[in-house]
């Protein structure tokens, strides 16, 4: 939660917020399908997108330790978001670990460590994603304001359920 300015000559607006969150989903699909959806370039391109109003500009991935992934696209608001990841650990049907940074236009907004654990749950798969992030100078930019404050209480509810 520390905020720091970086010495003379640098804007006092530099800040870092450390945050961690965990998401858990169950899917009625075998672990091998979920693993493939997470690691196969063609499969991942089907779901790892920006949603409505999003235009893809670039995409490539190599989900092997040391391999990289790059996804860039323009959001409906005109802001260009860029996702750059480096894979650290990939265990078939079990685990994926990568670190990634996000840019909105030219601004680096976060550097994070993300882990994905795949567990058998009945005939399906439980996916646990944990992100530990350092969020940089982010709360003053247009990208952060894309979501209306209507989201607020929903978001709080989800946060409180952690």
């Amino acid at each position, binding site marked *: 939660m520390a*905020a720091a300015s970086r010495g003379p000559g640098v804007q006092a607006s530099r800040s870092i917020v450390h945050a961690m969150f965990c*998401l858990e989903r169950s899917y009625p699909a075998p672990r091998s*399908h979920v693993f493939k*959806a997470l690691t196969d370039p063609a499969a991942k391109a089907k*779901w790892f997108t920006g949603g409505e109003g999003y235009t893809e500009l670039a995409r490539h991935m190599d989900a092997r330790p040391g391999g990289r992934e790059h996804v860039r696209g323009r959001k409906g608001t005109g802001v260009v978001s860029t996702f750059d990841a480096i894979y650290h650990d990939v265990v078939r049907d079990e685990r994926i670990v990568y670190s990634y940074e996000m840019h909105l236009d030219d601004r680096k907004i976060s550097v994070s460590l993300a882990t994905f654990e795949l567990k058998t749950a009945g005939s399906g798969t439980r*996916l646990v*994603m944990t992100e530990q992030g350092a969020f940089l100078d982010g709360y003053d930019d247009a990208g952060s304001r894309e979501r209306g404050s209507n989201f607020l209480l929903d978001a709080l509810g*989800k946060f409180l359920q952690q």
Partner: protein
Amino acid sequence: MLNKVTALDQTFQALSDSTRRTILAELTRGPRSVSKLARPLAMSLPAVMQHLAVLEESGLVRSEKIGRVRTCRIEPKALSVAEQWINQRRLEWERHFDRLGEYLKTVEK
């Protein structure tokens, strides 16, 4: 900007305690009197007041005294600073995982 950063620190500090999160969760349902907030909590009224003071200082909660009853309500504006940081990313992942679920339905078993 410095003020914002300080406010953010206070927000996170306020959210770091489970009792205060319980109080906030209750307040998302609507304004509550201090005594009603205190009732389900296993602690003294002064202890509850102390938690409420932290929440008020962080700007997450506002309170006003009418007659002998102090009523607390959530202050969504202050919360949005923290929300932008943690929940924006979280919600993006929620959407990704929704789409992943839709995609998995199309994959043959």
